[in-house]
C-alpha cells in the first residue's frame, strides 16, 4: 500500500509544481495552459517542497544576501513551519543520486503525458541524449486541477507551499537552485543512495542568531 500512496504523492507534487510554476507565453496555443522549463528546476523545486528544513535554511540564507526581503515575514514563515512540526511530518524522504541528479521523474512525467496533462518537448544532442526539456501543461489538466483538486483540504498545503516557494525562488534557474543545494554538506557529502540528513540544528542556530528566538 505504501508504494501506491507514494507513487500517488509523486504524481500529485510534480503536477502541482508544473501547474504553479509554468509560464504563460503570449504565443501559447489553445490547448496549452502554460510551459515549464527544465527538468533540473522541477527537481530542485521538488526538493524544497519535500524538505521544509532545507527550505527554511534557504530562506534564512536569502535573507542574508537580499536586503529587499522582509525579515518579519520570513521569521513568521519559519516559526510556523516549525510550530506545525513540518520538518518531521512533511518530509518526503528521497535518495540522492549520483552526479547530483534527483529521483528520476521520468515515470511520473510519462504518466502525466499519457493521460494528456502534459505535452513534452525536448532537443536531442548528437550523442542521443535529450536536453533543454520543455513541459507544456494542457488546459485540460489546468481545468481539472481547478475543478477537482484545489479545494481538497489535504491538498491545499501543497498549493500554498508551492506559492511560497515561487515567491522566493522562482527567479533562480534550475542550475542555480541545484548549486545552492550543493552548498550544504548534509546534501552534498552523503554517499550515493543514502538518505539526506536533516538540517534542523543549523536552522535553529541560525534562527536564534538572527531573531534571538528558539524554534520549537
Amino acid at each position: 500500500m505504501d508504494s501506491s500512496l507514494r507513487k500517488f504523492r509523486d504524481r500529485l507534487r510534480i503536477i502541482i509544481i508544473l501547474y504553479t510554476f509554468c509560464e504563460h507565453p503570449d504565443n501559447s496555443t489553445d490547448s496549452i495552459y502554460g510551459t515549464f522549463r527544465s527538468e533540473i528546476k522541477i527537481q530542485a523545486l521538488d526538493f524544497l517542497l519535500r524538505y521544509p528544513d532545507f527550505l527554511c535554511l534557504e530562506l534564512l540564507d536569502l535573507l542574508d544576501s537580499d536586503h529587499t526581503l522582509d525579515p518579519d515575514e520570513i521569521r513568521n514563515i519559519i516559526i510556523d513551519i516549525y510550530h506545525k512540526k513540518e520538518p518531521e511530518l512533511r518530509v518526503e524522504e528521497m535518495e540522492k543520486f549520483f552526479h547530483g541528479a534527483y529521483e528520476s521523474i521520468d515515470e511520473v512525467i510519462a504518466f502525466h503525458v499519457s493521460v494528456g496533462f502534459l505535452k513534452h518537448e525536448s532537443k536531442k544532442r548528437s550523442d542521443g541524449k535529450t536536453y533543454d526539456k520543455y513541459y507544456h501543461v494542457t488546459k485540460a489538466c489546468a481545468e481539472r486541477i481547478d475543478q477537482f483538486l484545489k479545494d481538497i483540504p489535504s491538498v491545499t498545503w501543497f498549493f500554498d507551499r508551492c506559492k511560497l516557494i515561487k515567491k522566493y525562488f522562482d527567479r533562480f534557474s534550475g542550475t542555480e537552485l541545484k548549486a545552492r543545494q550543493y552548498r550544504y554538506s548534509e546534501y552534498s557529502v552523503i554517499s550515493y543512495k543514502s538518505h539526506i540528513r536533516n538540517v534542523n540544528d543549523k536552522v535553529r542556530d541560525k534562527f536564534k542568531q538572527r531573531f534571538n528566538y528558539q524554534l520549537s
Partner: protein
Amino acid sequence: MSNTDINFKEFVKYVHEPFKERITFEEVNKILFLKQGYNKDSPTSLGKSLSLNRLRFSGKKVTGEDYIYDQSLSKGINVWIADNHKGKSTIFKIIKFAITGTDSIKRDIKAWIDEILLEFNIGQTTYTCFIDRRGRDRGALYRMTIANFLSFKDDQKLDSLDEDVEFDFKSMKQFEEKVQEFFFEQFSFYTLKYTQKSSSKEEFELNTSNLSWATYFKSIYLESSNYEYLFFDKENFGAQGKKIFEMILGLPLTYPINMLSIQLDKISEDIGRIKLIDKTKTETTVAKKQELEKKYATVNAELADANKLTNVTFSEKAFVSEYNAIQNKVNETRKQQRVAEEAHRLEQVRQRSLEEELANLVEDKQKIQNEINRLTKQELNVELYRQAESFFTNLDIKVCPHCETEVSESKKAHEHTSHTCSLCGEKPTEQKVDEAELKEKAERIKQEITGHQQRLQTVNKNITNQGQNLEKIRVAVAALYNQLVAMPSLQTENDKLKELEDKIEAINRDRKNQQQFFDKKDQLIKDEAVLKFQLDELKKVKQGDQNADLIALQLKKEILDYALLSLGKKRIKLNESILKILEELILKEVNAFGLTSITRVDIDEKFNLSFTQNTVPVDFNEMEPGEKLRVKLGFYLSLIQLDIEHNLGRHPRFLIFDSPGSEEMVPKHLHGLSDMLKNVNERFTDQLQIFIGSALREFEQITTSDKTFVKNEDEFVF
C-alpha cells in the same frame, strides 16, 4: 674416634708429668675432668642450613588500622628497600624474635603485633613458629608450613596436632629456653661460658655467664649499629665475639679450653682475693685505715654525684603521651573525614544513578515522540490519498508518452473489452487501494498514536518527578561537599607530630651520649666494693692462716695454665689446616670486594683476625668504616663458604644485613656496595639466604624483582 679426638687419660698423664712431685695423678685427673669430655667439638659440617620461606604477622596499628604483613621469602638475596624508620629493622627484629625468643622490637611497634608466624626450613624439614602476643606470649613450633598451620587453625584443629608439635610454650622465657634447645640441637651448638665481675656493689666475686643462642645469632643478624665491630658492640666483653667464632667453626678442643679457662679464672680470682686479704693484713696501719676510709668517703661522694647525674631521666614519656594524644586526635579527624567522604560518595552514587535514569527517560520520551511523528505523517499521507486519489482515477489514456502518438479510439474501445493496456497490450496489475483497507489503516494509526500519547504522558510525569528528586539530591551532595571541605586541616597536628618525633629522637641521642656517666658509675661501684671489702677485712682483725689454701690454689692454677697451654698448642696443630683455608677464603673475598691493598689475612691462636694492608699489619678496628663493612661481609661469606665448599663449620648459611651503608657512613664508603652484593647474589645463588634492608634505591638492582620488596618514599614496609 675422629682424628681430632684426644685421649683424656694420656692427656692427664702428660699434664701430671711436670707436677708429679707435688700432686697425685688422681688429683690432676680430678682437676682436669670434664663431664662432657674433651671431644665434644667437631669441625665437620652437618650440611644443615637455615632458610626462611615465609613471614606473616598481623595486628592493629596505632592508627586503628588492621593489617596483615605476609611475605614469601626466597633463597639467595632478598632485599627490602624503604626509607629509614619505615619498618625494615622491625621485620628483621620480628624474625630474630621468632628464631631466638629475644624480643628487641621497638616498644611502640610491639603493641601493634598480635600474631607472628615464621616458616623456615632446616635441611629438608619445614617448621612454622607461631607466637600469639595477645597477653602473655604463647605459641608453639610446628613441623608444617604456614599454609597448613592456617588451615588447621581455621578448622580449630590445632590442639589435635601433638605429633607435629616440636614444642610449645606459655611464656617468653619458656620460648627462649626451648627455642635455644631446638637450635642448639639442630646445629650442634652448645653453651660456652665466660666470667665477668658483678656490677652489684655488694658482690665482689666473679660471675659466670653463658653464651646463649641469641648471642650466637649475632653472627647471623648483622645489625647496623655493629658494623664498627667484627661481631658486635662489646664483643671483647668476655671475648664473646671470639667464642662465637670458635663455636661456628666447631674447632676441636673449644669446649675443654673454655671450661678449663673458666676454672682458671675462678682460681685466679680466689688467689687474688686471698692475696688482697693478706696484703690488707700486712699493710694494716692506722694511717692505711684512715687513708682507706678517706678514699671510701671520696668514692661514695662521687658515687652519690654519679647517681644524681645518672638519675637525670631522659624521659620521653611526656612527649610520647602528647604524641599519642595528637595522634588520637588526628585519627579521630581522619575518621570523621572518612565518614564525610563516604557520605558524600554515597550521595554522589545516588545522584549519578538518578541522572542515568532521567537520561533514559528523556531518551524514551524522544523515541515515543519520534514514533508519534512517524505515525502522524502516515496519517497525513493516508488522508491525502483518501481525499485526492480520485483526481488520478478514471483518466483515459490519450497519448503514448514514448512517441507521443495519440491513442486511437479503436484501441481505447479494445482496452474496455479486453481489459488490456491500450499502449503496451499487457494486463494492468496495479490496483487502486481499497477504501476499506485505507479506513482500517487510518483507524489503526489513530489507535497507535493514542497509545503512544498515553505512554508519553506517563514518561513526562516520571521525568518531572525524578527531576525533582534529582534536584533534592544535588542540594544534598552540595551540602555534603561543603561539610567535607569544611573539615579541619591536619597540617598543624602533623607538624607537631614531626616536632615531637624529633624531640624523642633527641632524647634517645642524649641518653646514648650519657652512657659514659653510667660507665663511670659502674667503675665507682666496683671501687667502692673493693674498698668496702678491704675495710671490712681490716675491721675483722682476725688472723687466719690462708697460706695453705693459697699454695693449693696456686698449684691448681699452674696445672691449669700448663694444661691450657698444651691444649692451645694441640689445637693450633689440629686446626692449622682449617684456619689456613679460612684465611685464604677471607683474603679472596676482601680482594673480590675491592680491598686489593690487603695481601694477607692471619688468624692467631687466640682467634684474633689481623690483616696485612700495604705491607703493614692492621687490626680490624683500625680500618675505615667502608673497609670494615667489606671485611665484615667477606668474613661472614667466608664462614658460609667454608661450609659450602669445604664441608667445615656450622654457620646456618643465613645472614641478615640490616642497613649496610646507613646514614652514618660517608658516600665513598658505599661506593660499589650494591655491585658487590649483586656479585654475591650471582656467585652463591641458592646456596645461602641473605636478607638486606636498606634505604638506598640503588640496591634495587642487586637481585631479581621477585626478591626485591620496594616501598615508595615515606611508605611503611607494613
